């Protein structure tokens, strides 16, 4: 409670001292943390603003007649101790006339918790209104929209990395902050580990930097796998030129980077257009959110997937009003995009729209299908029925499509062509490694830490962390130069549920003295060296501290093993 009051007072006093009025200088140490001081401060602040108003116009002074309330935001309501919260509310309600307070509670679970945290006597003092912020998934979509699906930032995430981040968000914590931190980690990793990331910047800067690349860096470019496949696809003179002359390489790189940039612009617009189409389909074969669509497009050529086929089929069954609205949205997207190639597309789409409008006025002719239904209703015997049904099926196949359906087909085919042209997955473009970060394993190690696995690796394979050449072993054998705890750990892995301490000690001493195996006399004397025993006991208690074993009550001189498996 005191901390709460203290913070309020300190920050209020802090704000006070920031204001440049000649307010009485109050020493922060001597301030009494009480409501009266708060009220005094508040009165002084509001009186100050009141005294300023006569200098302004008369009209504005009446808006200041009710002094503004002080807003206190409780960031996490459930983590407050209930007594503190209740007391605070009781106290502030008593002084509500002098100090108008508005309390904002951040609730992570459900609003019913107000009733469980505050007794009726306290909640009756509050005038409660509920407001809901956007769900966290929407926040994530906004973040992804602004960071990834934009041409503003040249850095992009590869498919696996994006999946890791989204999985952590959806499965573990719903935390957008952690997502952003993961994204920052990706950026750091990318710029740290990829030497060519110096070119991952705005296009103009990149071109300048290319001109000043050194020979080593050009070699780096030549070693990129996507560049190699590009080179293989070139004419042989060009190949030689690319592999030998740096200048030619630099020119080509500039061109390729430009292409990549243009590709991104087009990709994003077409992606949004496709999302408009697929987001309203029933059963969402390609996912409801644009990020799912984006992942699918990054993974592989989206037009070869089954989900794409099914979504196209569903799109062919859309009704007119939906189709029209979707086309209008696509037109807006393309008009607002920065890509220059889309003028033709926009015209084509507008043409479609006008054709749809014309259809409204045109008269739809009735199909043959109506007449065929009348035929069915005549009384026929089984054979005739079979014949008529077969004829119907064939006629239906060869049925003349209505104008609307033909137009719909055209629209869907056009969208399909756009997709095939522009939604190529990024892996297929050359020099994509400069912009895309795709080592998901590094990310997973850092973000989704598995402490047990790390412990196991450390104890099993101390070379991994200690980097001591002497400890390098090729699996299976225990080096006797390893630290005691590693030897003890390895030995205990081979035991069952209960481990006999004496046997363990003997095995330990055997391993440790294996190096000094020449002194067979000392070993054969049935008495284990005191030092070795001390080392053993220390290692065993360290293991117990780490939680791998625990003293067992079932048998004396035995310990129970607590972990199984590798982790």
């Amino acid at each position: 409670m005191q901390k709460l009051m203290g913070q309020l007072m300190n920050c209020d006093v802090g704000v006070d001292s920031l204001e440049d009025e000649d307010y009485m200088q109050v020493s922060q140490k001597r301030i009494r943390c009480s409501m009266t001081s708060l009220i005094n401060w508040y009165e002084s602040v509001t009186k100050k603003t009141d005294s300023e108003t006569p200098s302004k116009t008369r009209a504005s002074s009446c808006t200041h007649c009710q002094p503004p309330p002080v807003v206190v935001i409780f960031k996490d309501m459930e983590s407050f101790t209930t007594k503190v919260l209740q007391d605070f509310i009781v106290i502030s309600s008593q002084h509500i006339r002098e100090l108008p307070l508005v309390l904002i509670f951040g609730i992570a679970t459900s609003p019913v918790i107000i009733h469980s945290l505050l007794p009726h006597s306290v909640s009756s003092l509050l005038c409660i209104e509920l407001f809901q912020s956007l769900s966290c998934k929407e926040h994530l979509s906004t973040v992804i929209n602004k960071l990834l699906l934009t041409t503003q930032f040249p850095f992009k995430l590869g498919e696996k990395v994006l999946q890791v981040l989204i999985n952590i968000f959806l499965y573990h914590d719903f935390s957008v902050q952690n997502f952003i931190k993961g994204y920052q980690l990706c950026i750091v990793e990318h710029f740290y580990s990829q030497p060519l990331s110096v070119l991952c910047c705005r296009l103009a800067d990149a071109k300048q930097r290319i001109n000043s690349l050194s020979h080593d860096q050009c070699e780096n470019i030549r070693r990129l796998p996507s560049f190699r496949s590009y080179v293989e696809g070139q004419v042989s003179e060009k190949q030689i030129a690319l592999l030998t002359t740096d200048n030619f390489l630099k020119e080509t790189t500039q061109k390729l980077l430009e292409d990549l940039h243009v590709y991104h612009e087009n990709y994003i617009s077409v992606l949004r257009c496709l999302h408009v189409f697929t987001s309203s389909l029933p059963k969402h074969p390609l996912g409801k959110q644009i990020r799912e669509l984006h992942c699918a497009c990054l993974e592989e050529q989206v037009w070869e997937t089954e989900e794409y086929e099914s979504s196209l089929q569903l799109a062919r069954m859309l009704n007119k009003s939906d189709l029209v609205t979707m086309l209008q949205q696509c037109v807006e997207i393309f008009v607002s995009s920065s890509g220059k190639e889309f003028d033709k597309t926009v015209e084509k789409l507008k043409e479609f729209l006008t054709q749809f409008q014309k259809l409204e006025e045109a008269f739809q002719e009735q199909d043959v299908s109506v007449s065929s239904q009348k035929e069915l209703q005549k009384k026929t015997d089984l054979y005739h029925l079979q014949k008529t049904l077969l004829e119907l099926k064939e006629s239906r196949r060869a049925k003349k499509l209505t104008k609307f359906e033909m137009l719909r087909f055209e629209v869907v085919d056009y969208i399909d062509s756009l997709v095939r042209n522009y939604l190529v997955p990024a892996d297929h473009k050359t020099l994509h490694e400069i912009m895309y970060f795709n080592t998901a394993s590094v990310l997973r190690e850092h973000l989704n830490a598995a402490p047990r696995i790390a412990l196991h690796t450390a104890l099993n394979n101390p070379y991994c962390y200690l980097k001591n050449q002497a400890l390098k072993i090729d699996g299976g054998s225990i080096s006797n130069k390893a630290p005691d705890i590693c030897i003890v750990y390895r030995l205990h892995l081979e035991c069952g549920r209960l481990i006999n301490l004496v046997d363990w000690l003997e095995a330990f001493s055997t391993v440790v003295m294996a190096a000094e195996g020449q002194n067979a006399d000392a070993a054969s004397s049935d008495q284990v060296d005191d030092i070795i025993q001390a080392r053993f006991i220390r290692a065993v208690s360290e293991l117990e501290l780490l939680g791998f074993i625990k003293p067992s009550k079932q048998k004396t001189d035995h310990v129970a093993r607590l972990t199984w498996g590798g982790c």
Partner: protein
Amino acid sequence: MPNLEHPAYPAAKLLQLESLVPCREAQVSMLLSLFGERHQFSFPSIFIYGHTSSGKTYVMQTLLNTLQLPHVFVNCVEHFTSRLLLEEILIQLQSCSSETGQTSHVPFGTFNDFVRLFKEAIASRELQDQTLYVVLDRAEQLREMEANILPAFLRLQELTDRNVTVVLLSEIVWELFRPNTGCFEPFTMYFPDYSIGHLQKILSQNHPPEYSADFYCAYINILLGVFYMVCRDLKELQHLAVLNFSKYCEPVVRGEANERDSRKLWKNIEPHLKKAMQTVYLREISSSQWERLQCEDGEPGQLKGLSAHTHVELPYYSKFLLIAAYLASYNPARTDKRFFLKHHGKIRKTNFMKKHEKTSNHLLGPKPFPLDRLLAILYSIVDNRVAPTANIFSQITSLVTLQLLSMVGHNDQLDGPRYKCTVSLDFIRAVAR
């Protein structure tokens, strides 16, 4: 109703006092006789107790203010440590004197210092031997402070050797206050609850001037008829009266009925009051929302109160963690093997089980379980393999912060933390969908 008479105070003031404190004349007259004349020493400490909204604070304040007796009024909840409390008393004493606000106050540590400063402050206030009343509201907080505060306050008159009386106001009976070491017994006074007649009288006093008193009385009658069964709290009833009065007057305003048409007014207001009982009284919606609703005057439609929003969104693994915690809490450990492994043996019913079969675990409440058991159940109910990453462990802690799980046992026990699941079956069912 006996008139308040006292030779020491002017009759006009007493009349005013009487009008301000209806239905409490007996208590006020008792207090006045205790106080006696202004310079007379009164009982050293008075303990007033009564239920919520039985007027203790209001009566004390009105009495002291109307008769202009020198007093210091302190709320113990607001000044929750002894130091704050004592400082506040001194500050109030000093501020009443003619000197302008002294910012520097002498720091003091013990009650002894306080007594000394108190004597100085009284001397500087020129009270002319009038009794100073120190009123401590919500005195039950005094029990939480240091052990010497309460007995010291009860004997303040003796300690300071001045004309001071301490009045303690509380909702709890004196027997629960009495410290183990014994203390000076104060004069206890009980403020009984208002009866329905009293409530009616008090509420009718606040009638707005546009309407006649009878009209308002009838309204209060109706209101009390609906709400008296659930609520006898004067403050609540006042709040409700103010909120709903405009709706009650509507037919009159619209000209459909005049003030005496009780039946029509009743029909108009009754469904409204019933709805108010479910929403505003239970604090489901705020009173400003209620007023807005009244102004709209149409179909109320769906008004989602607080209790309607029960859905909690949790990430995937957290849901499984919660379900695993619920299973661990409510299933006895013996049955784990049976439910979660493919090949289980038969469980033999022992005598113990036969006796206790009938008590459902749900009635007994959640039982604590160790962390290992939670993780074991989690791994067996999640379909795909769960990697034991740090995220899962931190999710457990965040579930504790959200108060969906609670930690049992000492904080220092790193050996095996034990948890308890605190959510109900309905909640789990909703989550499990």
